[in-house]
């Protein structure tokens, strides 16, 4: 059994009227289980020479689905301010925009592809999936 931990640290001195800081750590486990996630795609790094439309970065067909606790990590590794990556679920279900430097870490049910759309050329992205091999 693998032990994988994901940690989020969020802090700001001025987004509220008081200093704000929190640290959250999760051990990545299979659905309804204390057994760790046992699959990882590795981190894929791509630089798209042209604008992309609904390019699949996570294909649902290769994952078990529904009763699962998969996680998807995506980061816009471009520089600058404006070259965003629009992240969607298959069927034009828009999640949101990752601007340069932005990252996301989401639970993934394995029932729909995860797709990206870009509006600029030479946008860089990295992504990976942490998943479970069987349905719990």
């Amino acid at each position, binding site marked *: 059994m*693998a032990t994988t*931990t994901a940690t989020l640290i969020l802090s700001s001195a001025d987004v509220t009227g008081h200093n704000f800081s929190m640290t959250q750590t999760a051990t990545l486990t299979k*659905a309804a289980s204390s057994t760790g996630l046992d699959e990882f795609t590795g981190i894929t790094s791509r630089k798209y020479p042209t604008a992309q439309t609904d390019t699949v970065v996570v294909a649902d067909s290769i994952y078990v689905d529904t009763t699962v606790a998969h996680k998807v990590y995506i980061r816009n590794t471009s520089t600058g301010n404006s070259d*965003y990556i629009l992240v969607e679920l298959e069927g*034009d279900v828009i999640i949101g925009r990752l601007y340069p430097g932005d990252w*996301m870490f989401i639970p993934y049910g394995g029932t729909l592809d995860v797709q990206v759309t870009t509006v600029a050329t030479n946008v860089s992205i990295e992504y990976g999936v942490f998943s479970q091999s069987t349905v719990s």
Partner: protein
Amino acid sequence: MARTATTTVSFSLSSSDLTSSALNISASQQLKKAGSKLGLSQTTGLAIKTTSYASAPVIDSTVLFRGDDYTADGANKIYLKNLSTIDSEYFTVYLTGSGGTDGGGVTELGRLYAGDWTFFPWNATGGTKETFIATIANTWAAGDTWEFDGIEITAADSTVANIATLIDECQFPNWVTSRSTAAVTFVARYAQDAGTVATATADITVVTAGDGDSVVSSSTLGTKSLSDIYIKPSVHTEMSLEHILIHE
């Protein structure tokens, strides 16, 4: 001057045995407005939503964030965490989306099991809000009444513009208003898809001694929001979700 703030969010992931070599991934960013160097400056604050239902059959979803309430196509960020410590308890996170694969009209993002957290950008794409114009016309008298959306006003005099002003000054539960002379424009507070049924003259109750009326015109049907965030617990007993939205 526009308010700005400096908020930093860092991600790290590590494992000594998921792969044959130790794994470490890290990323850090400052939360900025879309296409800008200015920091996101508004937040809902860190909050907790506790769900509880009488029994399993009556478990339903809860709207956590409505796209209509926030700026669309920006750099909004959402953090959620399931505070449960029972392995089997999860929250399903849904987006309303354009189609919907789960229960008609929503699409599952994924499940947050006990202790899981997520952090993601949120597009906050709202829908179209229904609108219509109610025009106060013909002969009214002091004491006549006008009622809509559970709100009733009583005319103080016979001047139609004054009656329209009374209506515009009301705080309707489901509508906001503006006025031009005797015409009151209603805009729904939230976008929703009402099918083909738009608000009509018959939906407003007028009691008048004369022939005063309140004809509805220029109705525009609404469409549903595409980015509302719903959550649904897996059990009817108490579960808590921690959340924060940092937005444009």
